[in-house]
């Protein structure tokens, strides 16, 4: 373990301490889940709660640890890094380690809190499901992998955590792998992410080789101090890293895996596909933000463009979904678009702030949806309705989540979304600003639609739904508190603690901090949200669509395009996956057997033919005849001699003794 000597890095005036022993032992945050996963795998089955208690205990420890870190960070401000060398290759040091600074502590806290609540929720939600123990193994592994990712001080560790969370996502999406659709969805998620990872990998390679180090803090230092060194490759590296982020954070056009990922159990969707894993891309961009800002500002524009496209595109699709989880999934994509766009606009804090609030209220929404799905045994909103009465706790908390997402004060989403809009406004990106406002409107609209179809009106499904168990509603209530209050940590002009938290890093973050509310942005966002809610309420409640469950605003062909998700999946399958999987690979295989192998076999056959010619003419008739003649001579001679071999010992003895006598006589008398 080497403590990083950072005489040049401590630029931020907010750093007061290196975190002391608490930071030094943060590695246990990362190691603990893996150890726990091992225990759950091997002894979980034999425990009274099938391993869930180990998972819960672990995550509770992590939660407590992250709260302590948060506490020490808020009070003192921590930024430190620790490295462990795991091998040198050439002049490169491959290092793992852990970084304890504002950004990572914020992520620890998010991961710890949401994971703890989701774990509690899942113990009840997953009860009686197959592979209960394995579910908790994977979930614990995921928590560990996510912590590997967010605690990473080196790019290589980022890559490792990056792919590990991908694998956990694969395992959990495909939890019900008996059905082919689910395993296909898992595969789709993994492959899509893997494609994006090409970008990340090459981006890391470029950065590493041009800076000569894999340490993020050094790369950031060089990118802020040594313009010449990186300038040539900065743009490429920035874009490549962003491609990686696009995969994990489901940005257009690589977002297609996320809605399919809803095949996994709902707690998984809540934890991974809403709150934590999908924010990895945003986290990466935030981690590398000084690099983007100083070396590749043009790349930021592209980041912003993609973010905006995503936030609008995904929001539109969310309107037409009938599957409650898919609505939330597209909503997640859309909100991730906000975060990415915010990073693109240079609003580092705003993006992270939205990440922070979104993690809580989206997890809340997913868990609420899970509660509903648990009750009605269906994902489809057409089979819900009227659940307000039978599931009051779920309803209340879901409404809180919805309002938070729609961005009404004083709920969390309001503050974070407002900050993003304000930043757009400040940057002068008028078009993008209005698209984002439109996005806010759409968000409010589809959430109102979802709430109407699910909770209002009359029940359209089968059976008798009832309120979920306390183990499930308690996390809901807790998250509701967060959904309300988590926005209060960064109110411009009142309390901007969050800004200080996340900018407490070894590298200085240069960004715009609004001193007070941007009234124009605030009012636009608020109006858009209210309009959205109003329109939704009007269409689905007053018009009574919720009663029948069908949508009144089906405008062909826009609706068709949206329902088919802009034909992106069709495009991918038709033009990329199927050709590779079927045509090209078959062609390659045919090439292998019919061209290369045929050539080889042909060579073999020619050789054997040639051999035949040589053998028949030269060998058999030429050399061999001579040899045969000599051999036949030997043969006939042997035939005569063999008569001596009668097998009778007496004859042998006679011959032997006769020989002895003869030789003796010869020796005696002649020689």
């Amino acid at each position, binding site marked *: 373990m080497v403590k990083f000597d950072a005489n040049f890095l401590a630029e931020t005036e907010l750093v007061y301490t290196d975190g002391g022993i608490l930071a030094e032992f943060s590695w246990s945050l990362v190691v603990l889940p893996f150890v726990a996963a091992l225990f759950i795998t091997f002894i979980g089955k034999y425990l009274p709660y099938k391993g869930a208690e180990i998972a819960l205990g672990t995550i509770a420890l992590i939660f407590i640890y992250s709260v302590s870190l948060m506490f020490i960070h808020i009070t003192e401000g921590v930024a430190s890094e620790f490295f462990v060398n795991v091998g040198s290759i050439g002049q490169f040091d491959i290092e793992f380690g852990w970084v304890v600074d504002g950004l990572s502590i914020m992520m620890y806290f998010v991961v710890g809190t949401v994971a703890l609540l989701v774990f509690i929720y899942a113990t009840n939600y997953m009860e009686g499901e197959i592979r209960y123990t394995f579910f908790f193994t994977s979930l614990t592994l995921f928590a560990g992998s996510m912590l590997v990712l967010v605690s990473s001080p080196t790019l290589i560790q980022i890559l490792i*955590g990056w792919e*590990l969370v991908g694998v956990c996502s694969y395992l959990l999406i495909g939890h019900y792998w008996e059905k082919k659709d689910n395993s296909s969805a898992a595969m789709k998620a993994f492959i899509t992410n893997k494609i994006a990872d090409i970008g990340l990998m090459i981006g890391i390679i470029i950065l590493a080789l041009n800076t000569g180090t894999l340490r993020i803090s050094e790369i950031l230092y060089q990118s802020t101090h040594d313009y010449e060194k990186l300038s040539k490759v900065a743009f490429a590296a920035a874009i490549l890293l962003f491609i990686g982020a696009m995969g994990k954070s489901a940005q257009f056009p690589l977002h297609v895996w996320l809605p399919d990922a809803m095949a996994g159990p709902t707690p998984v969707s809540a934890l991974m596909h809403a709150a934590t894993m999908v924010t990895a891309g945003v986290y990466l961009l935030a981690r590398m933000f000084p690099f983007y800002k100083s070396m590749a500002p043009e790349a930021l524009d592209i980041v912003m463009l993609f973010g905006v496209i995503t936030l609008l595109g995904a929001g539109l699709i969310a309107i037409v979904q009938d599957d409650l989880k898919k609505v939330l999934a597209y909503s997640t994509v859309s909100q991730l678009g906000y975060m990415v766009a915010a990073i693109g606009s240079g609003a580092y804090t705003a993006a992270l702030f939205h990440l922070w609030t979104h993690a809580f209220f989206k997890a809340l929404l997913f868990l609420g949806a899970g509660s509903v799905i648990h009750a009605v045994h269906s994902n489809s909103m057409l089979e819900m309705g009227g659940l307000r009465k039978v599931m009051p706790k779920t309803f209340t908390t879901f409404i809180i989540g919805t309002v938070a997402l729609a961005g009404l004060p004083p709920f969390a989403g309001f503050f974070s979304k407002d900050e993003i809009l304000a930043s757009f406004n400040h940057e002068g990106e008028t078009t993008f600003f209005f698209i984002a406002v439109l996005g806010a409107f759409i968000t409010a609209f589809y959430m109102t639609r979802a709430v109407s179809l699910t909770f209002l009106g009359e029940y359209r499904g089968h059976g008798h739904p009832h309120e979920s168990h306390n183990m499930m509603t308690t996390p809901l209530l807790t998250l509701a508190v967060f959904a309300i209050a988590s926005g209060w940590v960064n109110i411009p002009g009142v309390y901007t603690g969050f800004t200080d938290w996340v900018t407490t890093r070894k590298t200085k973050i240069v960004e715009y901090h609004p001193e007070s509310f941007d009234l124009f942005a605030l009012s636009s966002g608020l109006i858009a949200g209210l309009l959205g809610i109003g329109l939704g309420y009007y269409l689905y409640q007053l018009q009574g669509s919720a009663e029948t469950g069908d949508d009144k605003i089906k405008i062909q062909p826009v609706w068709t395009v949206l329902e088919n998700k802009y034909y992106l999946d069709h495009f991918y399958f038709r033009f990329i996956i199927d050709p590779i999987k079927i045509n090209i690979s078959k062609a390659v*295989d045919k090439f292998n057997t019919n061209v290369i192998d045929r050539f080889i076999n042909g060579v073999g056959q020619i050789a054997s033919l040639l051999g035949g010619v040589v053998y028949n003419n030269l060998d058999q008739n030429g050399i061999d005849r001579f040899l045969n003649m000599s051999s036949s001579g030997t043969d006939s001679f042997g035939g005569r001699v063999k008569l001596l071999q009668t097998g009778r010992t007496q004859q042998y003895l006679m011959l032997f003794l006769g020989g002895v006598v003869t030789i003796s006589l010869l020796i005696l008398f002649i020689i």
Partner: protein
Amino acid sequence: MEILTNGVGLSAVVFFPLVSALVITLIPKGQEFLIKVFALVSSIITFVFSVLLLLEFDFSSADKLQLGNKISWIRSINANYEIGIDGISLPLLVLSTFITVLAIIYSIEHLPEPKSPKGFLALILVLETGMNGTFVALDLILFFVFFEIVLLPMYFMIGIWGDRTVRTVAGFKNQIETRLYASIKFFVFTLFGSAFMLLGFLGLYYRGNKTFSIPELIELGSAGAFTGTFATLVFAVLFLGFAVKVPMWPLHTWLPDAHTAAPTVGSVLLAAILLKLGSYGFVRIAIPILPEQAKAWAPAIAILSAIGIIYGSLACLAQTDLKRLIAFSSVGHMGFVMLGIASLTPIGINAAMIGMVAHGVITGLLFFLSGSMAHTYHTRDMGRLGGNMKLLPKTGALLGFTAMASLGLPGLAGFWGEFMALLGAYNPLDGLNVTVFRTSMVAGAVGTVLTAGYLLWMLQRVNLGEPSEEWMDKELHDADAYELAAWIPLVILTILIGVFPKLIFGATNDAVIAMLSKAFGG
């Protein structure tokens, strides 16, 4: 200990298996238990020897050849019995002795038909002698002898214990038994390559002061003794010899057939160790002796590797035969190894070294698993398999894990070979064509996606889903204790190398840097 440092220990690692094999031939055929125990014990003893060498090895001077000896052998041509190991050969040597132990453990209960432990185990041990010998030989003739010794046991293993199904072969009129076709193809292919290789060795001998000693030739080579058309030709024939063994595209076609036909243990050893002989040859002989030529050929090697990566992965997607799929995946993975070697940088060649070890461990395990499954299901057709997780949970879980390792999941062994090879290929040695290498790197990166694609697809077809009716009323046996004993160490090794690559880099890095700085200066 004196006995370990003066070359006796190293010779013991090489020849103890051979002696054991001879002793096994003396044990009567009926004494199967005795034969098995004897083979196991002798392989373990060999492994212990290699571990003792590992402990004796001076890692602080891993770039120097150690623990070796030089004894006059064939005086008339100045061929010596010269052996020694450095950081490059040490991991491979230990891997070889280790995998052999596992192979024998597996063979105790799972002998291929026709069951004949005497011949089979004796062949494995002879094979081990060949493999270990190749890794320690420092004399070209000695190297060649060991290189060729490997062929025969493998030929017999495939030819006698191989797959008996009859199949049509492109270009042949008559159908032919798979094992016959595969064994002959394997033998002729490799012999073809090594015949040229021997020519190359002789060429070096006559130009290089009549010596076969690799260290001496390296000194000569780095001093620029081999130049011009001669050197180009020599490198070409060495390339041919080693590339067949690796195998590099388009010389790979013996590999899928050999793997498919070979018995489980045969394909494990083939994948885990035999393929490494080729890439090891590049690092040990071709590059340091002929650095300038290596530099000239490197772009070609890089392109062929990139083609191999993409081609192997695509071919995998078309396979329906489980073992054939894994065999093609070897083509892809060895493509990464060769891409690393072609970059001629410390990063690339270190990547190749860890890639070799990782591929040995992971693909060895994959072949163990697929062979065991083929044995249980009596089919390798992925169309008929499915729901393996339900039918054979332990095997299925391990298959899932290994597939993840094979697709280069970070945190497991396979990652370092792939990622570092790409890292090396981005910035090849000064003077090499950067565009070619970067294109190859991108191709390799695309290859990782395809690799993930076919492995996950394989998992989906084999492991996941509901098992088909066919297997419902069959009694299928999940992995037994012997199988687990053979597999779990590989799993642990995969994780250990993945988390702590220093296990390999710690040995190879100094040696690789020294080798390259001697070859290319600086």
